[in-house]
């Protein structure tokens, strides 16, 4: 990771649905190789923001570049450089583990040789080599999530977007999942992750707390806790969310 190089840069990014402002002029930068946590209550605008950054939704106002590409005008180039894991489980249950990996490898234009070598590496690292021929539907949820994450990284994207990747998963598996995230970051991949598990926020390099579509806090977990005089990110979050309700 090169210091000063920006993976994501958003300026006044805004999205309105009719008269409702889901995301209201948010401005932030994410450095290359950072693990960036995007926190917020349900409906705070996390998913809307992520959808604008991955080119699924056009901003109503403002602009953003991801991996150096404009999210509106350079979507085609952008897509080759990002990975995405949605809230919902996004592999195909009626395909085997190997077939799922090969599918995404193929979609991202990897050569057959690359797909082969990356598939074996992936299966080995996840300890799934023996289950390669099993239908994904038969895997436990934790394994499915880890597999989905690894598949999102298969084409070695510069940035991976994870939208609440650990929903409904037990604490041990969540811990293992975060180890995968760190491993990816260590290889230089920028990780943009939304979550509403506040303990996970502590694992991030920097966090951004979204309240009612605006940025209520942005910084390292340690700095933010010190600034607001709280012991945990959980307390910080509650404080910020309450503040929003009073002014709203």
């Amino acid at each position, binding site marked *: 990771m090169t210091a000063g190089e920006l993976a994501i840069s958003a300026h006044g990014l805004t999205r309105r649905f009719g008269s409702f402002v889901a995301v209201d002029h948010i401005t932030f930068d994410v450095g290359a190789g950072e693990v960036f946590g995007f926190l917020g209550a349900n409906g705070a605008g996390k998913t809307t923001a992520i959808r604008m950054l991955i080119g699924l939704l056009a901003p109503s106002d403002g602009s953003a570049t991801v991996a150096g590409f404009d999210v509106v005008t350079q979507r085609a180039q952008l897509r080759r450089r990002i990975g995405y894991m949605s809230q919902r489980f996004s592999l195909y249950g009626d395909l085997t583990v190997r077939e799922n990996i*090969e599918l995404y490898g193929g979609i991202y234009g990897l050569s057959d040789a690359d797909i082969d070598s990356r598939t074996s590496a992936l299966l080995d690292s996840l300890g799934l080599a023996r289950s390669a021929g099993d239908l994904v539907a038969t895997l436990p949820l934790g394994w499915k999530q880890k597999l989905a994450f690894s598949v999102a990284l298969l084409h070695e994207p510069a940035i991976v977007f994870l939208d609440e990747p650990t929903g409904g998963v037990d604490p041990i598996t969540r811990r293992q999942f975060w180890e995968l995230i760190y491993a990816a970051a260590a290889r230089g991949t920028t990780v943009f992750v939304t979550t509403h598990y506040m303990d996970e926020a502590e694992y991030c390099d920097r966090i951004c707390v979204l309240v009612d579509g605006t940025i209520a806090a942005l910084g390292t977990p340690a700095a933010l806790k010190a600034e607001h005089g709280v012991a945990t990110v959980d307390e910080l979050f509650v404080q910020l969310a309450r503040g929003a309700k009073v002014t709203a």
Partner: protein
Amino acid sequence: MRHGALRAFMAKEVRHILRDRQTLTILLLMPLVQVVLFGFALRSDVHDVRLVIVDPAQDVASLSLRSRFASSSRFRIVATTRSASAVEPLFRRGDAEVALAFEPDFAGRVASRTEPARVRLSVDASDPNTATVIQSYARAVIAQWAEERAADMPAVAVRPVRIATAVRMRFNPTLESVNLFVPGLIALVLTLVSALMTAISLSREKERGTMEVLLVSPLRPWQIIVGKVLPYLALAFANVITALLAAWLVFHVPFRGSVLLLLGESLLYAVVSLALGVLIAARTSSQRAAMMVAMVGTLLPSTLLSGMIFPIASMPAWLAPFTTIIPARWFIVVARGIMLKGVGLPYLWRETLVLVGMALVLMLAAVRSFKPRLA
């Protein structure tokens, strides 16, 4: 690399189809079952009509005409009476469908030729379509008999001019209704496989969240659609061939035109249906909704308003124009033309153009509807 992406996506689709054994079995057997069921059950041609003869005269002329009916394979004489009063109970019980009553001095009238000899045909018209068919069969038998009688008689100066109407049923001389249904059935099967299955398969991806991941990937909307549609196109093609083989082997439906042309037109119609399926999936939010819309929006009109079962000519004037927007209506004209009349593009170019136009417009709309919503 793009082709690699499309290939990988298509391989996945083929796997989805092959792994869902139950659906696949149903899809493959459906055309066979439909041809057989429709072929046997939905026929409007009439065999073995139960006939009552009311003959007070029992003379040489009436016996001669009666024997004509007796020897016809269409009619079976169930009773012969002298008085018309016996007919009513037979009609009420459903034992007879048609009664042929002679006037008392039938032979005398026939011989005199100054006044027409009269018979009365009474038909059970509780099923009007069948009644009309029976009536025309009976008239044909009588007319032919009268024709031959006239020829036998010596010419007389005052003989009135007779107009002999020779009726020939072209393209379907035995009036087999199964011949008419098979082209319609092909349309139905194609609609079912193409529109319904594509709508279900695409909306499943939306429902499960995999569509979002595909839209974020380098796959373009047209590649997603083509990858979805091509495997079903192959399946639809297999179905057309099954339906044709079943029709030919079981019902000996004639095939007079070019098989290649029919397959080409079927492909065209399948593309129209597939595009409809894509559009339906794009506009609905769940598999269930997509299925309902596909059923009501494509299957019902394709069955009821396409002329497959109910002739468009007998629809009310306000309804008939609506049939022009139904793709099956045009395809059925084409398929019947090729199969029964043996005509080619010189006669069917208009219908073909309409289908091409529909295919283009719907495909364009389908691709547009799958662009990530950027509005």
